[in-house]
C-alpha cells in the first residue's frame, strides 16, 4: 500500500444545479478492494463514472498511477468496468464480448483465443463462448461481464452494483465468487453498492458516502463498530440513536432514570449535547427493572423467523430498535411495558 493507483483530488461534479459529488478526496491503493457505499443519490456512481472517464469533473483532478488523466476520454484510460445492467453486447457471442477489449488493442488472433478462453475459465464459463448473452442466466451474464473487464488485465476494475440485479440466493454465491476471483487476480477494485452487507463482506476498505461526500473511510470493522457520525451509524445496520446530555466526562443522561456510562477515552464536557448509537442486536430484554435497564413501551412488532424486530419507545419519547432472538424471554405484545437492558459498552458516541 505505497503509492495510490487511483487518486481523486478535490473532485466536484455538478449536473445542472445539482452537486452530485462535492470536493471529494480519495486514494485507492494497489490490490485493494474498496467499496463506495451509500444510499441512492449519494454520488457513488458519479464517483465511479469520474474514475472511468464517462463524465468529466466540474472541478478537481483525477490521477491514475500518479499521472493526471482528467479530461482523458474513457477509451484511453485502460480501466475495466462492470455495469449494473451487465451491458453485454447482444449482437456478439460470449466469446466476442470477452474478446472486445483485446480486439481494440490489436492483440494477435491466436493470443486472443487463448486469453479469452483463460478468462472464461476463470469465471467457469468455458464451453459457452458461442452462445449469445441473451441465452445465459443473469448470474452467467454477470460472469461474462466480469471476464470481459478482466481479460485485458486493466490497472483497476470498477464494479457498479454488479450484484443488484441478481436474486438473493444467487447474489450471495456471486459475492463469494467475486471476492475469490479478485483475490486470485490481485486486481485493484472499486465496488459501488448500496448494500451494507455486501460492502462489509467484500471490502478491504469502505468509503461511506452521503450527499456527494465521504462520510467515513475505513476498514469494515471500524465502520461498523465506530461510526463517525449519525449518518454512518444510521446507514450501517439500522442503529438506534439516542440524544442525551453529558453529566460528567463519561456519563450521559438520556432519560429520567437512564444514565449511560460511556467507554473510557471519551472525554465529554459536562452539559454538552451528546448522541449515542446502539445496534439493535446489542439491546436485550430484561426480566424486570434493574441496573442499566430502561422502561419502554412496545410500539411495533415484526416477526422475522429467527428474530423479532421490536420498536419500543422510552419514557421521553425516544425510539429504540431491538432485535429479540427467538425464543423471546418474555411474551411480547403491542403496548406492553418492557425493560431494556442497555449494556454501556455497546454505546458508540457520535461526533
Amino acid at each position, binding site marked *: 500500500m505505497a503509492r495510490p493507483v487511483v487518486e481523486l483530488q478535490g473532485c466536484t461534479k455538478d449536473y445542472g444545479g445539482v452537486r452530485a459529488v462535492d470536493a471529494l478526496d480519495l486514494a485507492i491503493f494497489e490490490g485493494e478492494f474498496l467499496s463506495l457505499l451509500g444510499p441512492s443519490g449519494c454520488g457513488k456512481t458519479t464517483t465511479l463514472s469520474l474514475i472511468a*472517464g464517462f463524465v468529466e469533473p466540474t472541478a478537481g483532478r483525477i490521477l491514475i498511477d500518479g499521472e493526471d488523466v482528467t479530461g482523458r476520454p*474513457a*477509451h484511453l484510460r485502460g480501466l475495466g468496468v462492470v455495469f449494473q445492467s451487465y*451491458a*453485454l*453486447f447482444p449482437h456478439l457471442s460470449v466469446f466476442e464480448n470477452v474478446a*472486445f477489449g483485446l480486439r*481494440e488493442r490489436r492483440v494477435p488472433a491466436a493470443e486472443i483465443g487463448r486469453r479469452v478462453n483463460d478468462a472464461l475459465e476463470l469465471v467457469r464459463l468455458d464451453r459457452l463462448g458461442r452462445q449469445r448473452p441473451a441465452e445465459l442466466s443473469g448470474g452467467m451474464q454477470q460472469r461474462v461481464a466480469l471476464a470481459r*473487464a478482466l481479460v485485458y488485465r486493466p490497472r483497476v476494475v470498477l464494479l457498479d452494483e454488479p450484484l443488484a440485479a441478481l436474486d438473493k440466493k444467487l447474489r450471495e454465491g456471486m459475492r463469494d465468487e467475486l471476492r475469490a476471483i479478485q483475490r486470485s487476480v490481485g486486481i485493484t477494485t472499486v465496488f459501488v453498492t448500496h448494500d451494507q452487507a455486501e460492502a462489509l463482506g467484500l471490502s478491504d476498505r469502505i468509503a461511506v458516502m452521503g450527499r456527494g461526500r465521504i462520510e467515513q473511510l475505513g476498514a469494515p470493522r471500524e465502520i461498523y463498530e465506530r461510526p463517525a457520525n449519525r449518518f454512518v451509524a444510521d446507514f450501517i445496520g439500522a442503529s438506534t440513536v439516542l440524544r442525551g446530555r453529558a453529566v460528567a466526562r463519561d456519563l450521559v443522561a438520556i432519560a429520567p432514570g437512564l444514565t449511560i456510562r460511556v467507554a473510557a477515552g471519551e472525554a465529554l464536557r459536562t452539559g454538552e449535547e451528546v448522541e449515542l448509537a446502539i445496534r439493535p442486536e446489542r439491546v436485550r430484554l430484561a426480566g424486570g427493572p434493574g441496573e442499566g435497564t430502561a422502561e419502554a413501551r412496545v410500539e411495533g412488532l415484526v416477526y422475522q423467523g429467527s428474530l423479532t424486530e421490536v420498536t419500543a419507545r422510552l419514557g421521553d419519547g425516544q425510539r429504540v430498535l431491538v432485535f429479540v432472538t427467538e425464543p423471546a424471554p418474555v411474551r411480547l405484545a403491542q403496548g406492553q411495558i418492557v425493560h431494556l437492558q442497555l449494556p454501556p459498552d455497546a454505546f458508540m458516541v457520535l461526533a
Partner: protein
Amino acid sequence: MSLRLVVLALAAFLTVPTVVVIAVSFNPTAILSFPPAGFSLRWYVNVLTYPQFQRAALNTVLVTAWAVALALPIGTLAALALERARLRGRNLWAAALLSPLVVPGVAAGLGFLILASSLGLLRSRSVLIAAHVALVLPFVVRSVWVSVKNLDPALERAAASLGATPWRVFRRVTLPLLRPGLFAGALFAVVVSVNEFVVSLFISTRVTEILPVAMFTYVVNYTDPTIAALSTLFILATFLAVWVADRYLGLGRVFLQH
C-alpha cells in the same frame, strides 16, 4: 358471427380494388372492363416493351436508390441527434423532420417547383432526388429513432471502457444495434419513393419522370389494360419487399418493441 362479417366486409372493401386491377390486367381485349373476357399476357408484353416505361423504370431505380442512400445516413444522424443531443426545442425539430408526412403533396410539389425554377434546376434530376429525400426522411427518422430509444447507452460506455474510440464504438456497437430500424426505414423509404406521384409530377420532365408519373401520362392518353398490368407488377413488387422484410428482418419486432 356478426363481428366476423364486419371483418370480412372490411377486408373485401380494402382488397377488391386491387383484385379488380389484377383481373383486368389479363383481359385480352383493349378495354378496361371487369370481369375480364379471357386470359392474355399481351399487356404485360406491352408494359415491358413500351420505351417510355423502360426509361421511367430506370429513372425510378435511380431516384429511389439515390434518395434512400442519402436519406439513410441523414435520417440516422437526425434520429441520434433527436434522442441524444442537448437540443433546445427538441419537439420543434422533430416536428420539422416529420412534417413531410402531413404537408399535402400538392403544396410540397409546388414548393419544390418554385424552388427548382428559382435555382434554375427545373429539368434536373437532382431536384427530383432532393424532393424524394425530403419525402422519405420522416420514415427513416421514425424507424431509426425507435431503435435509438431501445439502445442502452451503457453498451456504448462499455465499448468505450474496453478501449474503443468513438468511431469504433459507432461501428461495432451503435450501428449493428440500429440495424432493425435502418432496415425498416430503408424499406419504407423504397416503398414511398417508388410510389411517389404528386410531388414528382410537379418537378419531372418526360426525360426524368418516374414510373407513377409515366403511368399517369399513359392513362391520360390511352385506356387499355397496359396500366393494369403495370399496376399488378407494382403491387407484386411492393408486396414481396414487405413480405421479405417482415419474414427475414423482423419488421414486426421493430414496431412491437416500442
